[in-house]
């Protein structure tokens, strides 16, 4: 039986959900997996929301769009409203507790609330909320190692001429990972 995971990242435009997905895909590839990254690029982006779907697999990937994702990263409440019902039973929802007031409605999923904006602000890097989110996801998925994702975001920043942002993004990943660890251990 092969391993295949579908992950949806969703949030407001500007929260970095497309980049978070790309870094996961890149890290997955470096980790030796097959990956696909499918962005929403339509008018919905211009309406202020963005999402992307990443598939990680140990075999060639068929559909890059996913019926029932294993994981959702919801950076805001509209994203939770839209994608929570789609999650596979037993799936995991990483929620941005800084912006989402309500609890998850499903009882058959693992919910990991992370105060992403607060953690990013503590690092004096408010734009790194996407890496806080990705760090939490990596902990919950346990498919791609944290260090590989750290290298991927560092390279991504370097290629964008912002190499000096590599370290803070790596740190944001780490903080998100640790925050998810606390939540998951408390729930275990």
């Amino acid at each position, binding site marked *: 039986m092969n391993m295949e995971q579908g992950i949806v990242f969703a949030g407001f435009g500007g929260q970095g959900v497309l980049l978070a997905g*790309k870094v996961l*895909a*890149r890290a997955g*590839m470096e980790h030796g997996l*097959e*990956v*696909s*990254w*499918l*962005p929403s*690029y*339509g*008018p919905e982006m211009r309406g202020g929301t963005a999402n992307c779907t990443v598939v990680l697999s140990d075999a*060639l*990937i*068929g*559909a*890059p*769009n*996913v*019926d*029932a994702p294993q994981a959702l990263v919801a950076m805001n409440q509209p994203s939770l409203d839209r994608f929570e019902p789609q999650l596979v039973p037993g799936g995991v929802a990483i929620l941005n507790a800084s912006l989402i007031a309500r609890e998850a409605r499903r009882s058959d999923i693992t919910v990991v609330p992370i105060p992403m904006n607060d953690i990013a602000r503590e690092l004096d890097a408010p734009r790194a909320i996407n890496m806080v989110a990705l760090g939490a996801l990596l902990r919950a998925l346990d498919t791609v190692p944290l260090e590989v994702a750290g290298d991927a975001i560092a390279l991504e920043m370097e290629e964008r001429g912002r190499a000096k942002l590599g370290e803070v993004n790596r740190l944001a990943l780490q903080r998100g990972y640790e925050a998810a660890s606390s939540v998951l251990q408390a729930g275990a």
Partner: protein
Amino acid sequence: MSRVLMRGNEAIAEAAIRAGCQCYFCYPITPQGELVEYMARELPARGGAFLQAESETAAINMVYGASAAGVRTMTSSSSPGISLKLEGISYMAGARLPGVIVNIMRGGPGLGNIAPAQGDYFQATKGGGHGDYRLIVLAPSSVQEAAELVMLAFDLSDRYRTPAMLLADGMLGQMMEPVELPDPIDPATIPGRPWALTGAVDRAPNVVLSFDLDPQGLKEMNKGLQRTYQEITERELRWEEVDTEDADLLIVAYGSMGRIAKSVVRSAREEGIKAGLVRPITLWPFPYARIRELSERVSTVLTAELSAGQMWEDVRLAVGDRAATPFFGELGGVVPTPRDVLSEVKRYANG
């Protein structure tokens, strides 16, 4: 070999440069904007020419001109933009000019929208422009295959002196996957173009035209084209099969829908349905004979497309009454999930 994560649009552009494309002409349109941006950034830096024309019509005629002058050349657009290029494409076919046209399809007709669709199959495979011409039409279903097929498009286009089209859609253009980029070709391996307009020094002048006012002359020119199309049909058919050996239900799907269908075949098999897939890679020429052969052994041949049923006509031509030939399609840029297609498969598998 190292793999890089690239968008379909970017991989197509990079592979075209590696195929020796020296001149690229365009008029921008979504969802193939990254292809234009990549070419604008990379092609001049690597010794080629990038030109954003004043219109699609101008761009395709620049391709005509560059090809007549003897260089590998390409244009790209999306559905409405391709409609505007059709006159020039017909002229290239008539003038026996190679060249590559990329269509990253979007929802239509008219201005439609910018979401993925496959509504341009008729346009690509049945002419589109005027006159008795064909395009070689290659339909990738992954970013890797898009890179490989754009290089093949240049080769086939040169070999047969006819324009070739890479037909993909917004999903493939926008998505990222790992790619192992093919090595750049050695320009010395590009076939010579003794017919090109390179300056008539120590030789008789060449003429590149798509007209002959004498009906007998134009008839002969057309017969020559038809001979070429026959040769292409005999030699260049390409398709992929998944689990067809023992299949009782065959899906025929190409491009993005073809890869969704791969997931469907896998899920159907997990549920005990003997499904298989034929994914045409050349849409023209179309693998009629192989689909006809397989239709002898299955009860159902289900065509799935992001259209109202365009390739379906070719599938039905191939299958005739040997098997049931239902259709599943989505319209307007809506992309079905594997589950949507699987429920169709179950309907016919249980019927």
